[in-house]
């Protein structure tokens, strides 16, 4: 069982307050949906949670212990997917899985064809990433989540570029992760998220 708790987080950029006094708690088997208008500070918050940025004020607790950016147990427990697709255009799909993903916290896939089948990219092994559509790139990027089982997923607009079928697959995967006692923090502009046990946080 894992728990993540944020207490009164605040972030300023120069003299501008991005957000202030943000608090929430999340346990295994739950998800948190971060909502807000453009510029409300959703990505800034999620980058603090991923350990890429520091809050100006407040506290983060991972399993009831204070979290610092170099906390290796916390860093080792999370998968952070940013809104960028984090792919190298010159590499093929296969090379991305074998060479790039292991450098980004995923394991090398033991059965690549099965993994590609999962994300609907079977048969695209030798295609260069630069020749894939935006939706296919997003699917490839999301494959990282499946290649190493980490309890906490932090996802910044993961359904962008995905078609209806892709979105169904994504939320099904998230739902399965939550039911396996995982935790998910997700930024989404959707009107509704097809997830059970979802808490929301408005910025």
């Amino acid at each position, binding site marked *: 069982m894992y728990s993540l708790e944020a207490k009164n987080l605040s972030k300023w950029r120069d003299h501008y307050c991005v957000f202030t006094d943000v608090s929430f708690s999340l346990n295994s088997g739950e998800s948190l949906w971060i909502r807000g208008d453009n510029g409300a500070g959703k990505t800034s918050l999620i*980058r603090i949670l*991923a*350990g*890429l*940025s*520091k809050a100006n004020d407040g506290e983060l607790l991972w399993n009831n212990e204070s979290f610092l950016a170099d906390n*290796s147990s916390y*860093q*080792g427990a999370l998968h*952070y997917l*940013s809104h*960028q*697709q*984090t*792919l*190298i*255009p*010159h*590499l093929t799909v296969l*090379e991305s899985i*074998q*060479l*790039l993903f*292991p*450098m*980004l*916290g995923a394991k*090398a896939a033991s059965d690549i064809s099965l993994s590609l089948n999962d994300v609907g990219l079977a048969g695209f092994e030798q295609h260069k990433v630069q020749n894939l559509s935006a939706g296919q790139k997003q699917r490839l990027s999301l494959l990282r989540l499946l290649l190493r089982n980490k309890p906490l997923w932090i996802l910044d607009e993961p359904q962008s570029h995905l078609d209806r079928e892709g979105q169904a697959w994504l939320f099904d995967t998230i739902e399965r992760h939550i039911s396996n006692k995982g935790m998910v923090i997700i930024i989404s502009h959707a009107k509704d998220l097809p997830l059970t046990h979802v808490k929301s946080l408005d910025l």
Partner: protein
Amino acid sequence: MLLSELKTLYKLEWRQFSRSQGQWLFPVMLFILVIVLFTVGIDPEAHRLQQMAPAVIWCAFLLSLLLALDHMWRDDYQNGVLEQMLLHSESPLQLLLHRVVVRWVLSIVPLLLCLPLAISMLQMPMTIFMPSLLALAAGSFVFWSLGSALSALTLNDRRPALMSLLLLPMAVPIVIFGSRVIKQSAMGESVSGLVLMLVGLSILSLSITPWIMFAGMRLNLD
């Protein structure tokens, strides 16, 4: 850093290098073109060329490396790969260190292969080849690691020449020692002390710059 992780990093770098659509050729072409322009621009008397050759070789070499340094972090920073690598690596400092080394090797090997051509164009004796090669390798590593650190510090800066303008003044001692190696080896004098000095500087830069790179990246990612 695990050996398997290192192997994957080296394979990834090699694959990117081999798929870079000939980008590695640009520094090589710049190096040769600068040498050519000097040889056609100066009075073709051998002794004039020979007098200027050490400085010309070093300036052309370092300017060519500047082109390669431009791509050190920026592409991976823009597509988000760099932040994910730092976030998920168990030893980010080692990761940065290895990346600096492998990119340096991939950048200088094509340039060093052109060295015999540069020596003959500048009408220098071939006896200077080995001392020059060693000095260029050691000196260029100092330049490369300082440039990588400055690139990391200026990742968010959109002024394209800033890194070059900050880096080139730091190259003064490298050019002084490096040119002396070529000059003295052409006169048949011993240059081992000077080469060792450059090797020492490269070891020093190797031990300091990864920390600066890491700090610079963290600052820019925040």
